[in-house]
């Protein structure tokens, strides 16, 4: 039983990271129906921004996260404006290929600038370990979990309570109607990208602290898994992405905790396929009837 609870704790930290990335996926998908394949690479760049900020500016944990979030937000908006905006009326698959192109560009660009090797992420937190009832909880895990929860609460506040959040919900429901109501759709989409990318940036710094190593290709697999998390919870639904992220993270941790670490990725994909076959709209999604 100790193994189970220990892996539950590890899974919560891993799941926090997936959930933060999944939020960006789900928000972008909700608003322009694009699987933003480059999102995983924004998360990777977030880790590098945090790395650079800590190494060269000698800042602490919170300033590093804020710097990384700000830079990622700008980057997200720039990518949206240059690559995705001209394709707003193109086919979905064209937009998807563009996202893949952006992803290649960011990965190779980072490799060019920062080198292909794995870099050690500087430790800005104490490595204190708490032993509670036989369970091992590190200070980093607490920081990761708390930061994630705070960011999620802020996001919920923005989406539910502010004017811009209302605009985002309106555009994702029906962008044409929103435009007719006087909402600036382009600006709203840009802000969605900014918020999503900022969350990915935060996730990047957190993962750097958790695993203490970063590399230019680290975004690929977590990107896919975060997308699976978003689909699992119901894509386009913000609480769904949070729930999906935690669920996938915990499943993965438990599977590797019981000795199946070689198959932990396969388990994630099996979960995905099962959920898609049983309830394609995701766990929290509503079935939308197709109109002819």
């Amino acid at each position: 039983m100790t193994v189970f609870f220990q892996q539950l704790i590890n899974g919560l930290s891993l799941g926090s990271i997936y959930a933060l990335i999944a939020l960006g996926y789900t928000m972008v998908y909700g608003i322009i129906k694009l699987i933003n394949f480059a999102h995983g690479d924004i998360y990777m760049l977030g880790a590098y921004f945090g790395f650079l900020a800590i190494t060269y500016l000698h800042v602490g944990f919170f300033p590093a996260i804020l710097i990384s979030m700000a830079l990622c937000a700008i980057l997200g908006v720039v990518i949206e404006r240059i690559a995705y905006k001209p394709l707003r009326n193109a086919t979905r698959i064209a937009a998807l290929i563009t996202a893949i192109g952006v992803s290649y560009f960011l990965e190779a660009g980072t490799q060019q600038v920062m080198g292909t090797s794995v870099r050690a992420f500087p430790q800005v937190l104490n490595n204190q370990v708490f032993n509670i009832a036989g369970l091992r909880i590190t200070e980093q895990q607490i920081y990761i979990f708390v930061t994630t929860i705070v960011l999620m609460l802020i996001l919920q506040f923005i989406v539910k309570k502010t004017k811009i959040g209302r605009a985002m919900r309106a555009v994702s429901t029906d962008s044409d109607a929103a435009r007719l109501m006087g909402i600036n759709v382009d600006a709203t989409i840009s802000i969605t990208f900014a918020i999503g990318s900022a969350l990915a940036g935060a996730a990047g710094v957190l993962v750097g602290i958790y695993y203490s190593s970063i590399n230019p290709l680290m975004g690929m697999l977590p990107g896919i898994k975060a997308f699976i998390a978003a689909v699992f919870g119901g894509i386009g639904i913000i609480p769904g992405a949070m729930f999906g992220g935690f669920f996938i993270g915990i499943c993965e941790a438990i599977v590797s905790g019981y000795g199946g670490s070689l198959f932990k990725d396969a388990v994630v994909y099996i979960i995905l396929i099962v959920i898609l076959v049983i309830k394609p709209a995701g766990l929290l999604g509503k079935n939308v009837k197709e109109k002819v």
Partner: protein
Amino acid sequence: MKKMLNKANLYWLLFCVGGYALLMGLMSAGIIDAVNQTVIQTIIVNIILAISLNLIIGITGQFSLGHAGFMCVGAYSAGVMLKQIGGLNGFFIGILIGMVINAVLALIVAIPTLRLKGDYLAIATLGFGEIIRIIVLNMDITNGAAGLVLPRVVDFTILFVFMVVALLIVVNFTRSAAGRACISIREDEIASEAMGINTTKYKVIAFVIGALIASWAGALYAGNFYVINPGMFTYSKSIDILVIVVFGGMGSMTGSVISAVVLGFINSFLQSFSNMRMIIYGLALVMIMVFRPSGLLGTREFKFSSLFKRFTKKKEASQ
């Protein structure tokens, strides 16, 4: 019934034989050096992959990202048989085994997932492809992550013949009644269902044919390039194939062939720039999609028969 060997088909035959003779001649004369020979071999494998994926995505409109998984099965069946039996016999037995496994797998994948649409289907097939790869990664007979080192049993002739056969099958399928049913599913699934087309059946047929041809590509790859390992068949491989298809134009087999050739040479040209290669490649993808979202050829095909029509029209106009 139309004659099998009409004028257009005769020209195609001449075109294939001529192309083969030309490439073979240039290779044996040493004008195409070893590096470019490898490029051409890669291009042929990519053409087979691209047309098989185009059948699923471009013709039937089912967005699959699991193609690397089917290629992986083909490659490993051929690879394992090459190890166990050896020689060309082993290779062809391997291809047959790969086709059987792939047919079963494609049915298992297709029947539940083809109910899904668009992005969901894409992500589900991606999951299946990765599961296949992870299984291969953890098997003993496949030698795990290290992969297999194989003798080269495939020569240019075999590659070329497989490519032509694959093209024949796919092009003829798209022009058959079943192929037209697939196209109607792409255009409007609900309308074609209302017209009495068994949409699930045709989607599954297209999917299985695509998977079978992808397994050839995998086998040819294994028989030609000495080394296979599971790291080659990640979803990025599926994306690479998808890029070829979309770049050439979804639904155009001519487009797939041309884009496989163009991208193959661009890739080998950029090889010398190492890291810059992927940067330029990524930028090129974005540019193509921004300025030409329907790909190079859209859904147009090159046909000798329409070429004749154009000539005869011109003659009539000039007379």
